[in-house]
């Protein structure tokens, strides 16, 4: 891991000093021992700020999209022939590269506007699981030691197997190595365990309707509509989200449970064929809403119906963006 970090800094320094990128998105050490914060660097000297460790969690593809679009917006009053491109470098693990594939397939930016520094990934720590493992004690210092995390707390130190506290998305990840990249650092990471990828969804699908509805409403009741899930999601890039539209207003502003449910249902459905299961929405949610259960169901449908896995390759068109006469249609039935 330290080796990867060293190489990352080296590559970042090179990209910035050779002016191959205007900005580079990565992670830096946060102010809390269990946080790595997204950062954007523009000078070669800043490369040493970059870190790579199991606390690097949120999907950085969101920042790539944001930076490119902010730059374009800043040029709306520039003559078309005088407009410049902004090239953004990004430290990208498998899921981040899949999100970039989706951006490219959806024509959000050109391939030459992004430089992908691919990193092999062994998963990130779900902070909720870390806190559960510590039984409420606060981590005061954390250090990775082999496959364990050594945590200092006020009650003493504790060693936790990192595997036991990885995000659910990471445990069943199928693409923990970059699917596209311009530069690769490190050796490819060993595969995770995707075989049980849909076990949770299968079990959930087999529950009676009222139990599924009860679970859905219980989870949605936790939501405070802070929109952290939407804002961290690389596939949620609408300039104006439907919840913020006012002519007409689709969703009420109050905390009516149906409004919250409508927001979440709509957001989840908009992820059909577009969710890479990076787990960012779950990781950033301050309330611990189990969004993954519902997103994973759509992911499963995407594969069952169209043999599609979101962002797997640039050549494989997204199911809702392509038409084939062989598309399954047995879900269409006479009422």
């Amino acid at each position, binding site marked *: 891991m330290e080796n990867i970090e060293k190489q990352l800094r080296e590559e970042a320094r090179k990209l910035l000093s050779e002016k191959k990128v205007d900005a580079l998105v990565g992670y830096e050490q946060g102010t809390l021992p269990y946080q790595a914060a*997204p950062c954007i660097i523009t000078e070669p000297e800043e490369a040493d700020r970059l870190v790579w460790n199991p606390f690097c969690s949120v999907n950085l593809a969101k920042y790539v999209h944001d930076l490119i679009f902010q730059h374009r917006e800043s040029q709306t009053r520039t003559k078309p022939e005088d407009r410049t491109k902004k090239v953004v470098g990004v430290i990208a693990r498998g899921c981040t590269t899949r999100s970039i594939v989706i951006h490219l397939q959806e024509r959000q930016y050109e391939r030459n506007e992004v430089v992908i520094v691919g990193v092999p990934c062994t998963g990130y720590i779900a902070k909720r699981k870390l806190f559960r493992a510590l039984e409420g004690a606060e981590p005061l210092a954390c250090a990775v030691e082999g496959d364990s995390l050594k945590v200092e707390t006020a009650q003493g130190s504790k060693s936790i197997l990192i595997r036991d506290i990885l995000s659910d998305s990471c445990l069943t990840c199928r693409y923990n190595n970059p699917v596209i990249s311009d530069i690769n650092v490190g050796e490819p990471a060993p595969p995770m365990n995707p075989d049980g990828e849909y076990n949770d969804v299968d079990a959930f699908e087999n529950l009676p309707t009222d139990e599924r509805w009860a679970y859905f409403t219980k989870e949605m009741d936790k939501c405070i509509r*802070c*929109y952290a899930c939407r*804002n961290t999601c690389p596939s949620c890039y609408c300039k104006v989200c439907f919840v913020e539209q006012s002519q007409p207003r689709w969703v009420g*502003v109050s905390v009516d449970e149906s409004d919250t449910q409508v927001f979440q249902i709509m957001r989840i459905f908009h992820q059909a064929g577009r969710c890479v299961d990076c787990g960012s929405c779950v990781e*950033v949610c301050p309330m*611990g809403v189990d969004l993954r259960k519902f997103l994973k169901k759509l992911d499963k449908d995407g594969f069952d119906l169209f043999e599609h896995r979101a962002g797997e390759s640039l050549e494989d068109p997204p199911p809702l963006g392509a038409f084939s006469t062989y598309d399954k249609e047995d879900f269409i039935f006479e009422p």
Partner: protein
Amino acid sequence: METRLIKKELLPGLIKGLAEDTLVYAPVQEEDDVFFRVLEKDMEPLAEFGNAKNAPKNFFFPQAETMMRFMKKERGSELERVPGDFPEAVLFGVRPCDARSFVLLDFVFDDPKYRDPYYMERREKTTIVSLACVHPPYSTCFCTSMGGHPFSSDGADVLLVDMGDDWLAECITDKGEKLLEKLGDLPKADDEVLARKEEMAKQAAAEITTSVPGKEIKPWLDENFDHPFWDSVHVGCLACGTCTYLCPTCHCFDITDEAKDSEGRRIRSWDSCMYWLFTRETSGHNPRPSQKERWRQRFMHKFKYFVDNYDAIACVGCGRCVRYCPVNIDIRKIAQDIAKL
């Protein structure tokens, strides 16, 4: 000031008893987290916990509330004031930092020029029971830098201190005294206990090691609205509302009408300076066009504008925004970095 002792094991029962005929808000465990909730029959109030994830301001200033209803009639329209029939209530288990937030919110909602009837009715009818932090629960606690103290009784009606076998209850106000009377015959605390409490208070304050500049940076903020420092504060910000929604002192709101057919209601709901819609004007112009201006606003409101208006910093040092920010933007660090400029 009256002081009483409550046997440790009796407290949860007393609170549950109270909840039988009074509206009680108390911290309860829900899955991984502790939340302030309306205490219902099958819920266990917590007396030993770090702090609740949601701020107790929610009960006086809910995320959304109906201000009035309106109906279209054959001739003209009719307005209906939403009756303020808020019952007497007890808010139990507030940490001293959060209790101080009420003192700050009162400046806004109990302003001599405009008294907010919705907030004030709930505020006046609620008795606040604070729990002193014998051991401040988080490394992100910094109440002492913001004018608070782990044993502060600011904003509280009763302050409870964990003395080991007993809770020491200090009545701060008449409301607090009435509440303790309701709890039955409780023994008085002797001088030895009170002296021990003073010692514990000193120790608790010493356990808070984070120092965050407060009013010291105000002169810099007065002069440096356009300083390049603001270019870096917001980097990484997701523009979500976690910090403002969990903050015990954030109080910005929006007013919206929701109507269907010939009836509707006017709603007041939380707003967040982190949202792009917050200051967007009807024309489409937005005086805070990017997250940079929005972050500057959040910081300035707490450390400059509020100080200008009320001579107090609008932060109580609870550390929620530090702990729960998904991308670790740390308000302590911003203040510390400014102090170094």
